[in-house]
């Protein structure tokens, strides 16, 4: 009992954070059709910036060096991380979306992510290079001194509240005329253009808002673990989020919840708690990746629209106008 609860709480935190990730990627890909192969870079951007806003100043002497180091309260650091990720999303979007489409666009995002990865892991004055940020004290520890289990429970609450806010952001975009234009752009960008829709702008908004959610999730991760380094955001992580989104179903946010539960919690995180096998310590991570790949293949084969498909919108049920006989409806021919 003493172990089960913190274990479940930890899984819960990862589940909540992964929900935010899948919704963010869904805004980009599921709503607007922007193929972002470097989603994890925005997560990292949020984590790093939240980190350097919340951490104290680094210095070259101690061997821990990073920019800023403002000692600001965590909620502000989280917002800063989200904003930084949103801006980075806009910048990469401007490079990738302005002139390119589909696969070409995706390759540019991947390339941009690789450049950033190389820069961050090698240029130590930025975020301490490959060692990464570390030593973040528990957020809120001045008001609430907690032991590590209690802190985990607190973080279930914090990430839960933040997740609910993100849910409303994602849902409001999806159910708005803006979301409709995003989906139209996804289905046929040229046709949306010919109706006077600035499709580049629409896609940039999707890219940036998706990156904001990625940054929020990254900041929550930073606050929870207290450290973040390049080992945590290799490009493969992007595809875990992709797998979660596709398995769950794109174009709707409940699909993201199901997908992040199946892929990110059941398969990805839960297997981390299986005790390592002495003879082959790399076996479990390998099996995990195989399971994620297999789940993706099975879903694409059996149910390509995902476990929860995009909902058909019947927001417009008749009778809309009083006094109009329904017979007019049968006219068709």
């Amino acid at each position, binding site marked *: 009992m003493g172990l089960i609860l913190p274990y479940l709480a930890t899984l819960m935190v990862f589940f909540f954070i992964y929900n935010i990730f899948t919704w963010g990627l869904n805004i980009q890909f599921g709503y607007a059709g922007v193929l972002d192969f470097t989603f994890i870079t925005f997560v990292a951007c949020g984590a790093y910036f939240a980190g350097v806003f919340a951490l104290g100043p680094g210095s070259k002497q101690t061997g821990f060096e990073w920019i800023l180091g403002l000692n600001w309260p965590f909620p502000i650091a989280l917002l800063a991380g989200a904003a930084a990720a949103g801006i980075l999303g806009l910048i990469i979007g401007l490079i990738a979306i302005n002139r390119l489409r589909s696969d070409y666009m995706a390759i540019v995002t991947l390339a941009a992510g690789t450049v950033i990865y190389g820069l961050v892991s090698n240029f130590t004055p930025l975020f301490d290079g490959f060692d990464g940020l570390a030593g973040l004290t528990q957020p809120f520890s001045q008001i609430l001194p907690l032991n590590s289990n209690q802190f985990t429970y607190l973080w279930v609450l914090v990430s839960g509240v933040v997740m609910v806010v993100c849910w409303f952001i994602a849902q409001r975009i999806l159910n708005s005329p803006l979301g409709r234009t995003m989906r139209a752009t996804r*289905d046929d960008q040229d046709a949306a253009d010919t*109706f006077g*829709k600035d499709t580049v702008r629409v896609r940039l908004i999707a890219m940036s808002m998706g990156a904001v959610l990625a940054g929020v999730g990254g900041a929550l991760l930073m606050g929870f673990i207290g450290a973040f380094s390049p080992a945590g955001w290799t490009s493969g992580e992007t595809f875990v989020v992709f797998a979660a989104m596709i398995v769950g179903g794109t174009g709707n946010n409940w699909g993201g919840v199901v997908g992040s539960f199946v892929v990110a919690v059941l398969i990805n995180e839960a297997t981390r708690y299986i005790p390592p096998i002495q003879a082959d310590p790399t076996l479990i991570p390998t099996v995990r990746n195989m399971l994620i790949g297999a789940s993706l293949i099975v879903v694409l084969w059996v149910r390509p629209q995902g476990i929860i498909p995009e909902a058909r919108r019947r927001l417009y049920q008749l009778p809309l106008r009083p006094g109009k006989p329904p017979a007019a*409806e049968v006219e068709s021919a």
Partner: protein
Amino acid sequence: MPDTDALLQVEHLSHSFGGFKAVDDCSFDIARGSISALIGPNGAGKSTVVGLIGGALRNQSGSIHFDGHDISRMAAFKVARLGLLRTYQVSREFGRLTVMENLLVPPPNQKGENLLNVLFRPSVGRGEDRMLVDRAVEVLETFGLLSLRDEYAANLSGGEKRLLELARAVMAQPKFMLLDEPMAGINPALIARLDSHIRRLRDELGITFLLVEHNLDVVERICDRVVVMAFGRTLAEGRMSELRQNPEVVRAYLGGGLDERAAG
């Protein structure tokens, strides 16, 4: 003779793909409130002209004026915002949107497309949508598509997609519609319905039409004026009945290109 009542003026338009001159010094005017046709044999450059007018291609020389604006090198969405709306040779519906949603995309300047409204005042978009839905219901009714309103556009038949394209375009309240082969691949009964819709839209809403069309019977039936293109330039203009007597036009259609190559 620049026609002051011309809604669209194409002057000395030229465009090459690599070394191939697809359009070569093409000029014509389209009168406001008319239904005109652009015809010509395959390879005459009609589709390139459509692409240039609609902004899908940036023209290399010559000019295009629409309703007093120079749209020569304007991006497609900006051209559309001036009220010039084009369709494509194949239907380009938004497949994973319902028929009703397809009609709600085109109306310009929707407040619900503003991110701040979306996040902080979602009621703005909802209120606006209610009015748009009312309009869309009327439009769908006139096109006989109302019973399909909740169907995914991708699931419609070819003919229904053509009707949907026209219905969707009406929602944008354009001044000018450029239809690229609207009758291609649809049955005669539906052709009759489509051309009556086109005439009705011209008469009721004052929309000017330019059709790129291969079906000359349709052209003769509904078009006031016809522009014939061949080898990238304007060959003749006039009423279809006159053009049928024009030896140059007949030759262009009945293998004039072959004759010329044989002669050259």
